[in-house]
């Protein structure tokens, strides 16, 4: 079975089509100036003019009860604008919820193609998946206690999904291997670690020490997730490399003997 790291018929570069490549290279002038940095291009001015006129992507929804919101803000958030905290809570909630789906997709791939020596076990993947789900529920509870609506999509939640859209694409593509899917997952896990770290600071600033403690535990778990995923990916890559090198040696031996 072909592995994605095998040499094949990739046709994207010039060297695989030397005749056509010679032709198209005739269109490249021998002398032309270096590329202008992007921010100095005319297109940057269009971008700037749109930025100047732009409105925000969206806003944080008001708490369900304005009275409750005032109380919440006063008693629980010690003068901080609650919407900043709610926005980032919404982001974590959405990210953890999507994280469960990412691991669901990885588990499906695992059940189909299996693992490798030093790769993840099903239990390990499932355990992380359950922790993502627990984190989702923890943030849901936190938002409810603060009078925020955990069913809403806050601006940071929306943008975090835009940022990680490619991760789901890479994982759910039937053609990607388990190591490739885990590589995509690593992006999400690394971002998640930093997301929790910032949320801890926000909770502490808001005087939410209980929540900050909960978030610290989640942060530790996410660091463990990121470490494990990174090790699996690194192990898979070095395993592939070792296999290729030993394969090459096997191929070389008969000729050299």
């Amino acid at each position, binding site marked *: 079975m072909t592995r994605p790291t095998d040499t*094949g*018929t*990739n*046709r*994207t*570069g*010039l060297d*695989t*089509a030397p005749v*056509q*490549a*010679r*032709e*198209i*290279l*005739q*269109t*490249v*002038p021998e002398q*032309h*100036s270096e*590329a*202008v940095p*992007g921010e100095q*291009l*005319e*297109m940057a001015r*269009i*971008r700037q*003019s*749109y930025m100047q006129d732009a409105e925000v992507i969206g806003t944080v929804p008001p708490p369900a009860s304005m009275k409750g919101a005032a109380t919440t803000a006063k008693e629980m958030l010690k003068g901080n604008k609650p919407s900043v905290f709610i926005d980032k809570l919404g982001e974590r909630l959405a990210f953890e919820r999507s994280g469960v789906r990412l691991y669901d997709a990885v588990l499906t791939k695992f059940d189909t193609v299996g693992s490798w020596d030093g790769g993840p076990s099903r239990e390990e993947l499932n355990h992380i998946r359950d922790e993502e789900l627990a984190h989702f529920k923890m943030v849901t509870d936190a938002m409810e206690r603060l009078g925020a609506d955990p069913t809403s999509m806050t601006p940071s939640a929306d943008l975090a999904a*835009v940022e990680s859209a490619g991760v789901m*694409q890479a994982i759910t*593509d*039937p*053609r990607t291997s388990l190591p490739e899917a885990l590589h995509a997952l690593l992006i999400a896990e690394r971002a998640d670690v930093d997301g929790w770290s910032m949320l801890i600071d926000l909770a502490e600033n808001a005087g939410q020490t209980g929540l900050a403690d909960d978030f610290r535990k989640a942060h530790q778990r996410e660091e463990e997730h990121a470490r494990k995923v990174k090790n699996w990916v690194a192990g898979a890559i070095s395993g592939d490399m070792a296999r290729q090198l030993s394969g090459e040696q096997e191929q070389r031996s008969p000729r050299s003997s």
Partner: protein
Amino acid sequence: MALNIIDEKGTPLDQQRFTWRELTPAPISKLDDDAFTRVRVILMNGIEQEAVRFQHACARMNKELQGPLARVRRVDHHQQTLVNWLLSPDETPLEVTVAYEQVAIEVTAAVAQQEPDDYLAQVYRFGMLEDFDHLYRYSALLDRVEGKDANNITQSYTDITPGRPTEVEHRDPMDDLRHHYDRDTAAAITKLNALTIMAAEHQTRDYYMNVGPIFADPVARQLYAEIASIEEQHVTQYESIIDPGESWLEKWLLHEATEAYCYYSCMQQEDNPRIKAIWERMLDYELGQLHFVMDIYKDVEKRDPADMLPREIPEPIAFKSHREFVRRVLSQEVGLTARGADFVQSQDIAPDEASPQYREYYNRDGSPSSIVADGYIWQPGTELAERRAVH
């Protein structure tokens, strides 16, 4: 041996069906498949889309044909699904756009060379030089927004240099209408060519209108808005070369023949065996549909449909690089524009005529296609790479 579409009956219509699994096959490889496999996939999506579009319009105007149209159209819809789902999910909409322009260039170039009518060949060359410019503009966008080399998609088959600048392609609607072929005297291949290119351009217009708003970057949104407008002009141009005096049934028959011709062309040249088998199956389906419509035509119009169809299917569309032809046309005809249905040198158009006036207004805040490609020179590995010597 050439295909005889009158004798070959294909798959009977009532045996043409799919499972959902069949409709969603494994995609082609963006990296490993030949660029012309993707060209064929995109072209055939456009051909099927046009088949569905035409049949809906026909049904809205012909109560008595609604039943047969519904039956054939359902299969066409599913054929389009199967074909379009061959595109792979690791291609961004902008990469697919680059591929759409490669289709527009290479297929129109092929058609321009096989077209026996000199005026219509000129129409195709005229449109081709505009799409050629679009490839350059979108390649600049791909490089400058996504940091990618468009030639990874086009695989060195198609030059990435300026054509007729998009900025001057904007014309008054009346300058996009052309003379049409005569249904009684035109060669069969002329009719197939016209439907093929009209279909390809119409799907391109629709694709840009769908994907344009998904870009966050304002420059990309502007560029899609601008080039979609040219594609609308191209649809206007290409639909006007088709004889409007053809009956609805005559047009339906020609649509079916065009589908068969295009699948035949694909099947003849496909080097991916899995995709070749799909083209073969689709060709058999189209032949079945063609004969289904031929029977209706006989019943309703009391004429022999064979009189209108080529007995042997014409030489296949040449799916290959037409670099030399494109370069020659570029050097000779880049300065052309249109006044009404005629092509003239752009310097012969006065500034107060309709198209310059039209352009002047639309470009008043700047032409996105000129801005995005300002100073852009394609080179392998993007404009950020070190220049590579010809070897």
